[in-house]
């Protein structure tokens, strides 16, 4: 029963993920694209829960969907995007795209021998994970993160800092109508910039 439930959930949610990914790719309206992406993430998060990665699943929803996708929506709505129907173009190149995808998928299938993963997910590596199974996922990650991978953790922080700085730097604009004085420019003026003498005929 338990297994069957897992299977059903898995198939439903993976089906939803794939469907929403398909929708992402084929929508005209960019807002809809982003919204379908959000759906994909949510379904994915459920799938991750099935693999006993609760922490990551919830982080996915909180951080990714909550922050990054919101950002996407902000930008999408800020920009005045032409919504043109590119159905014809899309239809023309669709076969090529599908062939490419099929090829890649087949390649990946070839990479895996048939009998590689006969054992179910949970039946292997149990000896290693006996101690870890009893801890909740968060604690387990925490145990490893701050001891073995602390350097990577610090670096990740630096990366985030860099991202913030660069994002602001890129988009920052100077105020256009500022009335601040530029002393250097004021001192370096020449007479010719300010005064022009004209010779004009006297009017009668």
């Amino acid at each position, binding site marked *: 029963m338990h297994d069957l439930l897992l299977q059903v959930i898995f198939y439903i949610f993976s089906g939803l993920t794939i469907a929403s990914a398909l929708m992402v790719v084929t929508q005209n309206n960019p807002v809809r694209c982003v919204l379908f992406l959000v759906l994909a993430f949510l379904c994915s998060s459920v799938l991750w829960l099935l693999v006993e990665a609760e922490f990551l699943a919830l982080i996915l929803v909180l951080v990714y969907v909550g922050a990054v996708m919101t950002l996407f929506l902000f930008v999408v709505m800020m920009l005045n995007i032409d919504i043109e129907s590119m159905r014809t173009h899309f239809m023309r190149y669709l076969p090529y795209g599908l062939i*490419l995808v099929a*090829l*890649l998928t087949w*390649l990946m299938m*070839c*990479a895996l021998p048939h009998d590689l993963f006969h054992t179910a997910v949970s039946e292997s590596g149990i000896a290693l994970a006996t101690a870890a199974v009893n801890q909740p996922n968060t604690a387990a990650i925490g145990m490893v993160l701050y001891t073995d991978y602390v350097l990577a953790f610090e670096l990740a922080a630096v990366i985030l800092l860099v991202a913030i700085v660069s994002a602001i730097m890129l988009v920052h604009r100077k105020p256009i109508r500022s009335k601040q004085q530029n002393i250097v420019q004021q001192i370096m003026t020449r007479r010719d910039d300010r005064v022009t003498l004209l010779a004009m005929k006297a009017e009668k």
Partner: protein
Amino acid sequence: MSILQCCLIIVLAPLVGCVVAGFFRKQVGRMGAHSVTIAGVGISFILSLYVACVVLSGSMPTLDTNLYTWASGGELFSYSFHLGFRIDALASVMMVIVTFVSLLVHVYSIGYMADDDGYQRFFSYISLFTFMMLMLVTANNFLQLFFGWEGVGLVSYLLIGFWYQKESANLGSMKAFIVNRVGDFGFILGIALVFSYAGSLHFETVFRSAELIAKEHMTLFPGHSWSVMTVMCLLLFVGAMGKSAQVPLHVWLPESMEGPTPISALIHAATMVTAGVFMVARISPLIELSNTALSVIVVVGATGALFTGILALVMNDIKRVIAYSTLSQLGYMMVAMGASAYSAGIFHLLTHACFKALLFLAAGSVILGMHHEQDMRKMGGLWRKMPITYVTFLLGSLALCAIPPFSGFYSKDTIIEAAKLSTIPGSGYAYFCVLIGAMVTALYSFRAFFMTFHGQPRMDKDTLAHVHESPWVVWLPLVLLAIPSVILGYVLYMPMLFNHPTLLSSSIFVLPEHNVLEEMAREVVSPLQAFGHAFLSPVFWLTMFGIVLAWIGYIVWPSSPLFFAKRLGWLYRLLLNKYGFDAFNDFVLVRGVKALGRVFYRIMDQKIIDGFFVNGTGRTIRWLALKTRVIQSGYLYHYITAMVFGLFGFLCWLLLAQ
């Protein structure tokens, strides 16, 4: 001083004259130019007389020394090229002739070229020619001979085209040079063959190994084996054909009359054209061993002797007549060579040099007197106005026609006898040709004589009033040449041809079965006796018949030539066209080469090399770039597609390549 030093001075003195007159034109002026060159050639003449006396008296052996090694190979090619002299009887005789005629021409040119701008250049050139010719005759190896050979060809080109502003002069000089070149091509092949079979270019070495070479055979065309000696001699003879204007390479000599008359006398009568004859005499040890070569020489010479002589009958330019006469006499010399009567050929060369130069210079004197008019139809009755020229021209003509006791008789008669006695194939034909040629010679030379000096004056009144004898610088060489034309034959008859040993016997090799002079020597006693026997031979009567015909045709019945020309119109036209040789050359060779050049230019050069290779590579690269440019579209999705394909390929390789 030693003979060797004498020879060095003989050869180099004209060169010094040439350099001074040529490069220091302004410094020495006209007087200086002719003085220096005449001094140079004069010294050469005196010294060569001395050398000839020493050598011909038999008191010294042949001098054969190498003076200077100008190139030598190392391990790969262990032969050394030398500069050296070979002074034997033949060379010394030739030296005397060359310097004598050259000296007289130098003196003559003072008068002839007096009012020409290129005075110093002329003297420089004729001195250069003398130097080259002397190098040729004193050479002791084939390459030095070839150097002199080419040198005289070059100077001939320079001198024929002396008046270079004249179009015809330029064409004539180029024709001479190019036809000569054809002969030189054969000559060089012959020299190469000599070198490859004898291993050396030195005359002595080659002559010693002549017997060995004669035994060898080579295949020129598959299936036909030729004797090496025959091929070698034939190729060397091709060179002689070019230089000595044998048929069919004779076409350049008439056009060479575009040059000033002194050089026609020097180059195209006495010296350059005889270089071929000299060379054939030089290689007599080789030619004697090849009957085929001898036959070819005799036939070619005979053909030239008769047929070019016939052409002289229809020429109206006085110099052309004498030019064709030279061609005919060169044919006689070659007949002598082919009949193995080398001494007779050289003897005829000697006498011919004297009387032909005399004829040319006398013609030059006439032309000078007639203010550069050369057409005989406009002359006539000059014998009263130019007596010295008249007498010397007459003496020259008598010598040319081989009237006894003038010099031409002794040499030409010997040749005709030799042709009769010779046994090689073709000598019968040669005898026939030289016999008829004697009559033809008399006919054309007296035709020229009568037309020029006798009969009614046909020129305009003005010229007639101004005609006078030429200055002494012009008639002195004529007189000096007339003397040997008269007596040289008588004097040298026995020593040159029939004494034991003959003057040239040390330089010439004759096989016993070919030795016709030996046969003739049994009956000949003295020149006087030969003189007496002359009146019994058919040659003399044929000659008299020719003179009588000329007298009838041009004095008694002046309209008869025109009558015959109309009746035998086809023959007349054939002769005027010179048997079609020039037409053939122009049509086949000149046009052929021009067409070939055009093909090479238009198709090879322009289309293939320029269009296909040079421009084509550019165009191809541009086309490639055009096609490749499409890849750089600027669109991100194209680039990503490319990346994905690359990734896909890489993964395929990685995963599936086990």
